[in-house]
């Protein structure tokens, strides 16, 4: 007999924290992050019958949240982002202290276009492979890796000027 699928309360218990953190890194705002997370779970509730593989619920939720985010920013006036074409794409060219301030990291992320910011955030949540990221963004793996390489190179350059020897500060 097939087992019953997850209910939304199970998904909230299991994934709300990581979904919130993802939303925070996307938006840079705790209020926006909570709104985004709530809206994502509401949409997930409606679409729950579409979740055929409960094991992939996390990726499914992340995808929903990103789509909600994209809908929101589509109508908003875009803030100025850094064109990454001018960034040196060679990794490892700048030394970096092992501690990075969370607020500084968020500033750097906010300066990135969403198409570069998202793969970066998903990559550093570690549980997402390049294939997972590609599926979530509907992109070829090669495009994901290219954007990731550029985004990481930008971070290296950007954060090298904000070296902070203190431990990372949680908000």
């Amino acid at each position, binding site marked *: 007999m097939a087992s019953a699928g997850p209910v939304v309360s199970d998904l909230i*218990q299991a994934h709300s924290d990581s979904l919130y953190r993802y939303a925070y890194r996307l938006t840079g705002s705790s209020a926006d992050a*909570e709104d985004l997370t709530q809206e994502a779970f509401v949409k997930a509730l409606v679409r729950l019958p579409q979740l055929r593989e409960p094991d992939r619920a996390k990726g499914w939720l992340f995808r929903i949240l990103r789509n909600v985010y994209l809908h929101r920013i589509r109508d908003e006036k875009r803030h100025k982002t850094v064109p990454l074409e001018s960034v040196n794409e060679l990794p490892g060219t700048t030394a970096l202290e092992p501690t990075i301030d969370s607020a500084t990291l968020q500033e750097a992320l906010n300066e990135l276009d969403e198409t570069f910011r998202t793969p970066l955030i998903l990559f550093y949540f570690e549980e997402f492979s390049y294939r997972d990221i590609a599926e979530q963004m509907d992109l070829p793996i090669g495009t994901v890796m290219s954007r990731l390489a550029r985004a990481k190179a930008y971070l290296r350059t950007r954060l090298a000027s904000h070296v902070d020897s203190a431990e990372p500060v949680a*908000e």
Partner: protein
Amino acid sequence: MECSTVRLLLPYRRPGGPSELAPEDIAALDQHLAGCPACSAIVAQSARFDAAIATTMRTVSVPGNLKARLLTAAMAQQGAIWRRAATKGFAAAATVLVSFVIGFGVFWLLRPPFPSEKVADQFTEEIETPEPVVKTWLSEQGLPPTLPLEFDYRYHQFHGKSSIDGKDVPVIIFQVWSPNQERIDTARVYIVSSNRFNLAKIKEAQNSFASVQVFQDEKNGVAYVILYTTPTLDTFLKRFSIH
């Protein structure tokens, strides 16, 4: 493995993360790194960078009551979904009910009137000319139109079906009022088909009140079982009818 190849594969090497390389590639990569200080230095620097970013990336304080607020919002949405489904269900049920009421109403209005005149005509025909009516009826049953005896149809009272052992058997009933006996004598003619009963085993019988005679019509596969309350059937026949 050469350094140029290693540098191409390095982005796919994610220690502690999802495996992006085949095991044999990872083994070859590690073997090279063990003997190449330049590539090892690049790997080490990249690993420190990734570790620092990853740690800070995930260092986001989650509001303490976030789960509770999310659950409350989800339950409210679930309630809205159920209410919408219930409304749709009620609307569908109401549509079915209205359709039924309309359909029944149409049926009610379109009911045919009782054909009193037609029934009266049939009754008159049976009374005035019973024999042809019965013959027509027998033919409609797929039975021979003529009975084995010349019954006087002035004594015809009824023709129809009677239930015998759960089977409908055509029967014609004749009745005679005998003033001298102060009773009504009856003759019942059951027309039994071979496809319903075993005609070979039909027996004549008699008790204190009635007698039974059997007439076989093997050609037509029927038997006539006549039950009568008079000493003989002559009372009901045309030659010997009593007026």
